[in-house]
Every structure is written in C-alpha cells, then in structure tokens.
C-alpha cells in the first residue's frame, strides 16, 4: 500500500528532478509527464538524469497549454500508467513540477493509509465557487471554447459573445453535474480506475475537450459519479490571486509553510534555495503534526488581493492614483472644517482642542501661509507651511495631511478668502464634516474699525464669495456632511450646536463639555449691519439682525454658561 505521485512538469526541470527523487526515496512510485513544448534535447537530458531512479516512469507527452484539454489528457495517461505498473498503489497524488512536499513522505503515506477510501478532491458546484476568473462559471460548461484564452483573446471573447447572443448552449452529458475545484487532487485507486474505465468515457472526454479550463472540472465532476467518500479539499496548498494565477512561495515563507502542516505547497519559486533545502534535505522535525491548516497563509494572500483591488482608502501615491471622480472617499479619515466659528468665538481653536482632544489647526488654506496648530512651520510627513507649495496642488495637501495624521482627528478653519479650489474637493469627500456659520466674516469687519468705504467693499466681496460657496455646499452632489447656520440662527442657541459638533468628532466621549467658548461682544453689530444697508450693501447671509431684536451678547465679565451634562 503506497501513494503514487504523478508530476506534471514544464519548467524548472532541475527542481522537478530534486522533488521526484525525494518522492522516490520516500518509497513512492513516480510518473512524470513533461509538456511536449519542452525541447527534445532538454527532455532527453532530464530523462537521462533521472534514469537511475527505480520506480520512476515517463508518460506519453501532451501539449499543456493553460486552460486546455492537454492537461487532462496528460493526467489521464500518467494515471493510467501509474495504476497499470504499480498494483500496490492505493492513492494517486497529482502534483506539478513546482510543487514542494512540506512534510516527510511517510506522514503522507500514513495519513492516506488511515483514510483508505477517501478521495481528496476539491469539488464544488458552479453556484458555490467564488474564484472564477473572467466571469465564466456555469458558461464554462454550456459554451464552446475552441480558441486559446492566452493567445487568441480577441477571438475567444468574440466567440463567447456570439454564442451568448445566439443563445446556443451545449447539452451537458446526461447524469453529470458540473463541479469545479483545484486541479491538484489525490484520488483512491478505486475511484480513479472507475473514472478511467467508465464505458461513457469517450463521450465525457469529447464533451470536456470543449469545456473551458477542463483541468479544474473533469476529475472534479467525474469523481462525484464514482466516489463513495469525497473530502472536498485539496491536500496541496495552492492560493490564487485576483487574476487567477497561483501565488508563489519564497524563502521568507519558510516558517509560514512549516507551520501550515500542509503536505504539499505550490507554487515554489525555482530559485527559493532555502525552501528546497529545508523541506527536501533536513531531517524530520519531531513535533506534533496536525491536520493541514493553511489559515494564516490564506489570510496573507487574501490581504494581498485586497490591497491590489481596493487599496488603502485615502492613500494617494505613485502606484495608487484613483480617478478624481472615483466613487470612494478622497481622504483617509474623517476631519472637520469650520467656517465662521473662529470669527464668532474668541478662543474657538483652543476650546475645541480641549473639548475634543482632536488636533485643531487655524486656517490651513489662508492666503499668507498654512496655519498649522501651534504655529508650527512644518507638520506630520514634513508638510511645509508655504502657501505657494500648498496652492500648487491643494488637493494633494489635504490628502497628505489626513493620511499623515491617521489615528488623530483633524479640525481646521476655513474662510471665504482661503484657497477656493479646495472647497470643491472637500464637498465631494465623504470624510469631510463641514460646519458653516454664514455671514460671520462680518464680525472682524465690524471689530476692525477701519474706514467704512473699505469695509463696505470688503463686505460686498466676502458676501459674494460665501454665497457661491454655500451654493456649492448645498448642491445635490455633495458627499460631505454639511451643516449651515446663519449667524442669527446660531447665536440663538450656540451651546446645543457646539455640543453636537463636539460629540460628532467624538474623540473623548467620556469627557464632558463643561465650558463654552467665549463669544465676541456683538453690541452694536445690528447697527453696523444697518449702516451697511444704508450704504446700499445688503448683508443677508447672517440672517435677521434687526436693530430692535438684537440677541443677547455674552458679557465677558459674566460667568460663562455651563452645559447640562447628558
């Protein structure tokens, strides 16, 4: 009773030789199929090199193009040869030249001897497999595929489209239920023999010759006809990436492979000397062997596929540059933008920093320079405070800032005279939370005490800009979370709104909001607005501030209002 190894070989023949010797030394009969694409002299050298190995044979050669029938034909011939020549073989293990046995041969023999009737073959119905490439699952079995996917892609695609349009469908041979799975199986003599000697085999073979990637479905489907006990998993550890290509193992995977307790891994980089050295030559380690457990390797490769297809959100770099209208978040994390708050409250930034624990910057997009928190001239990631550098690519500045500070929520002030281009970027960014007190730009003008003609011009200009900004922020395409209050609305109940904002940033939910920021003294503000009106400039963005309905300004000398805790 032993396990026979069938090896399909097409490149790295020196490695295949090493592995074949290893199997043979472990007492396994070996049948090798060499792709007929391999040049004759190369093949003869290979054959000669292995001529001293007892129990090693070569089977009839076929051309094995990926996804073609040749691979199945090669497996059939090799398996037939194996069964015919080695009556003591009870299981046949199909492997490739780039497979590497990870556990001592006798462990595999024992494992299979303990399970004499079990067929190890991954075999699932098409509805249940997520791994199909090219979007063809059920159609693999109902369309015809006379063209090579690798070499004649255009014809391949055109013929598929044509068949779909004409609604032609092949009939699946009676009694067969298409199953798919890894092409690397290990079948019992009984099952394999039943498949190879089935009286219907000619008609099955005829059918599968025109199925796409038959090596993933021929044995997988027919084993279902003949096996008593299918264990639907492969004993060969083989992971596929998002293009359906097998992942490769390198020297640095040594520990990972050791701990996987799998019997065979594929595919191994031919120059991974340490892996071949470790698994073929080292004496067996004595440690408790378990069932194969490729979980950790699965996770690593799943993460790699995820990184390739989804990437790290908000990262903009040399090999990830999402379309500007791409449907994801522009930035890496949530951030808050405030317009009008610093104008209305004397100490807004320090207050917000204390209340939330977030990083609160000044006006990052101010025309003179970047006002980083604490007046710094550089910031995380070595961002410069130069306004020209920033304005050369404000979008990059923003994405960099948020990426560089991931893990720490960022807040900053914005205003009508700041870099205009960035507002659009933020409006379409689902990570942005933009809070605007409209018309608050009038407060600094009111406080400035400058010449009224200048003030009037400035007010007219700022109002025009902010009107445009509000229009943008209120458009239906906006993805940011936007809240807008007129100044009059806001100062009616400032604390409620502030509390909501603080809760939203949500850095320290345990921390209670106890102190309110200091609002500037607005005595005379209504008169100031009235004077603007009298000059013919009607300020409307701040809401209703009629002279006789002036809201209560907070008195600096009075006690600050306290919030009722939740």
């Amino acid at each position, binding site marked *: 009773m032993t396990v026979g190894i069938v090896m399909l070989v097409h490149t790295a023949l020196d490695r295949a030789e090493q592995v074949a010797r290893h199997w043979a030394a472990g007492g396994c009969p070996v049948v090798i199929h060499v792709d007929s694409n391999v040049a004759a002299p190369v093949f003869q050298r290979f054959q000669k090199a292995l001529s001293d190995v007892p129990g090693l044979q070569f089977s009839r050669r076929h051309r094995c193009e990926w996804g073609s029938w040749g691979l199945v034909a090669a497996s059939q011939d090799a398996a037939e040869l194996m069964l015919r020549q080695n009556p003591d073989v009870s299981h046949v293990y199909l492997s490739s030249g780039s497979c590497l046995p990870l556990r001592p041969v006798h462990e595999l023999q024992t494992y299979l001897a303990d399970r004499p009737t079990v067929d190890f073959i991954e075999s699932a119905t098409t509805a249940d497999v997520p791994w199909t490439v090219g979007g063809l699952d059920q159609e693999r079995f109902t369309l015809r595929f006379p063209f090579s996917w690798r070499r004649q892609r255009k014809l391949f695609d055109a013929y598929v489209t044509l068949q779909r349009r004409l609604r032609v469908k092949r009939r699946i041979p009676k009694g067969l239920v298409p199953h798919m799975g890894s092409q690397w199986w290990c079948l019992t003599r009984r099952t394999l023999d039943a498949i190879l000697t089935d009286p219907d085999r000619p008609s099955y073979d005829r059918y599968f010759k025109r199925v796409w990637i038959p090596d993933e479905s021929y044995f997988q489907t027919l084993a279902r006809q003949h096996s008593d006990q299918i264990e639907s998993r492969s004993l060969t550890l083989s992971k596929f990436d998002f293009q359906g290509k097998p992942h490769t193992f390198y020297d640095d995977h040594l520990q990972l492979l050791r701990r996987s307790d799998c019997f065979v891994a594929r595919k191994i980089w031919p120059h991974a000397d340490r892996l071949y050295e470790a698994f073929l030559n080292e004496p067996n380690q004595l440690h408790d062997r378990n069932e194969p457990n490729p979980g950790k390797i699965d996770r690593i490769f799943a993460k790699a596929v995820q990184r390739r297809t989804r990437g790290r959100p908000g990262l903009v770099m040399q*090999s*990830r540059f999402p379309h500007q209208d791409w449907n994801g978040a522009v930035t890496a994390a949530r951030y808050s933008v405030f317009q009008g708050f610093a104008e209305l409250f004397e100490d807004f930034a320090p207050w917000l920093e204390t209340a939330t624990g977030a990083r609160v910057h000044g006006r990052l997009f101010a025309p003179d320079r970047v006002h980083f928190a604490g007046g710094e001239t550089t910031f995380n990631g070595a961002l410069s405070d130069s306004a020209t550098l920033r304005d050369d*690519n404000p979008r990059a500045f923003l994405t960099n800032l948020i990426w560089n500070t991931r893990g720490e929520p960022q807040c900053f002030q914005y205003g009508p005279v700041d870099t205009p281009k960035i507002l659009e970027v933020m409006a379409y960014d689902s990570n942005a939370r933009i809070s605007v007190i409209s018309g608050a730009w009038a407060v600094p003008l009111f406080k400035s005490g400058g010449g009224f003609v200048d003030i009037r011009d400035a007010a007219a200009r700022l109002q025009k800009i902010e009107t445009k900004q509000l229009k943008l922020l209120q458009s239906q395409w906006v993805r940011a979370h936007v809240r807008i209050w007129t100044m009059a609305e806001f100062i009616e109940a400032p604390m409620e709104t502030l509390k909501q904002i603080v809760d939203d940033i949500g850095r320290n939910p345990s921390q209670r909001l106890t102190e309110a920021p200091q609002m500037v003294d607005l005595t005379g503000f209504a008169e100031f607005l009235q004077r603007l009106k009298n000059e013919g400039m009607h300020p409307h963005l701040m809401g209703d501030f009629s002279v006789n309905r002036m809201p209560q300004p907070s008195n600096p000398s009075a006690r600050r209002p306290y919030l009722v805790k939740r």
Partner: protein
Amino acid sequence: MGLIQSYHMRLRRKRLLLRALRKSRELRPVTNRTELIRPGDVLLFSTQRNEMLRLPYFLKYYRDMGVNHFFFVDNDSTDGATAYLEAQPDVSLWTTKGSYKRSRFGVDWLNALQRRYADGHWTLVADPDEFFVYPFCDTRPIRALTDWLDSCGIRSFGAMLLDMYPKGGINDEPYRAGQDPLEIAHWFDAGNYAITKNHQYGNLWIQGGPRARAFFADTPKSAPALNKIPLVKWSRNYAYVSSTHNLLPRGLNQVYDASGGEKASGLMLHMKFLNTLGDKASEELDRGQHYAGGREYAAYAEGARDNPDLWCKWSERYINWRQLEILGLMSKGNWA
C-alpha cells in the same frame, strides 16, 4: 486616445530611437563583455561622470541584489572612474566626450545601448546615487521580482525617487568610498508629495520632498520630478522620453492603478545630499550641462555654501522597506 494621437506618439518614439542611434556614434567602447550575458539576466544601465567615490558601493549594492551585468556610459571622467569600471568583470563600458545636455542628459546614449543589448531582458536604469528598493528586497533577489512581474504579464515597474538627507549640514559628515550612504543620509520626507497626471504620456508627475520644501517653496512648478519607471522588461522598440520619468509606448507608464487598488511599486533612495553635493553643484553649474539650465544646481550651490540642513522635526528615519510600505510611499500590491 484617438488614432491620430496614437500615430503621433508612434512617430515620436521612432524619432527618439533615431536620435539615440545618431547620438550613439558619440560613444566609444572601452570594454564590451556583453557576451557574458545569459537569457534571463537582469541588466543595469547607468551614466556617470567623476563618481569614483560612489561606484564601489553602488556596484556592491546591485550585485548583492542580483543584477547580472552593468552597462556604463562614462561621460569624460577625470577621477579614475573609467579605469576602475574597466577592471570590473561584470561591466561593459563606453566612454564619450559628447555633451550630456545634448544627449538629453544621457537618455539618448542609454536608449541606444538598451536597444542594442537589452531586448528581452529586465533592465534597471539607475544613476550612481540612486538605490533601488522594492517589496521584500531584504529577502528576495531582484530576479524574484522580475519573475513575478513576468508571471503577471507586467512590463514596467515604478519606483519614485525618495530624497535622503542627513541630520545636520550635508557637509558635516564626509562620505568615504565603499561606505553605505545610508549611514550618513538616512532621513526622508514621508508625506509631502504632490501628484498630477501627465495626460500626454499617461504617467504620473510627482513633485515634493525636501527639495521642494527647501529650495522650491516659492516656485513649486520648477521643483524636480520624482516619478520614475526604472525597471522595464526591455524591447528594442521602447524608448525613454525624459530621464526615466516616462517612456514610449505609453502603456509602459501605467504603473499605477486608477480605480482605487494599489499596484506593486518600489522606491529609488536618492543619495544626492552628501558632502559631495557642493563640489558637484559648482562643477555642474560651470559646465551648464543640467536640466533647465542647471536651475536645480544653482539652488544647491547657493544652499550648499551655507551647509544646508534639510532635516526638520517631522523627518522620518529610514528603517527598511516595510516602513516605506506602511507609510504609503511604496506598495506590495498583490505580491505576498
């Protein structure tokens, strides 16, 4: 991409190749060991001028990485670099007194050599102060990367230039021949790079880093480009357009994903900011052989005189490629 534009690009590529052929007449072969090259070998192409000090470590670094053969164009060196390179067993060397500027900063010379010798090989183009870093470079030779790229059907691999600098003035610690420059210049800017797309060639255009921050804060448009595509499975029909920033045909410039995923990418650690810069800058300025009238070197010469310090409190200290990956400067893509 319209037909006319495609044809226009094709003409441009043919012109570049013709130009390379013409410029290659300026090259005089010193030693040609190209018969040593085997199929599958990884080749490195470089131009150099008076880089004797840097060459020993440069060669060691890339030999350790698994580069099989080096092609050098020596631009009229006077410091013994020519003799040194000639004696190396894995170097093929050409020399020229031709104008660096009029060979479009060496691109024409290298295009010509690549067309002649690199067809079907993976080729790396690196200046003597550039050190290629790629995912798993501490455990896998470059052949592992190129084999993987081959298996994925990828023809070109991006590696942005990452300017490295010391802490303190760049003249404070002199560089010795054979020394790993990382011992001196192991700081870099982690997150101040600005990217736009070049719609003509389809490549990304990256600017930023310490040079933009320190020398070009007021004229960001003229800051040097950092995007590079130094590793290409070469075909005799390919041509670099402007340094290794972009190539033709345009498909080779698609080293980034535009739908949210990450392609695998590496970095070129740029060891320019050593004490050698000051001399180099004034020499280059005198020769007027550099890009945009040596604007860049003018800035350095000016800065180097005061022994500039590029370090700031947010500078990041280099540890390994994994750190660069986590910072988002390069990516493993789907290589695991």
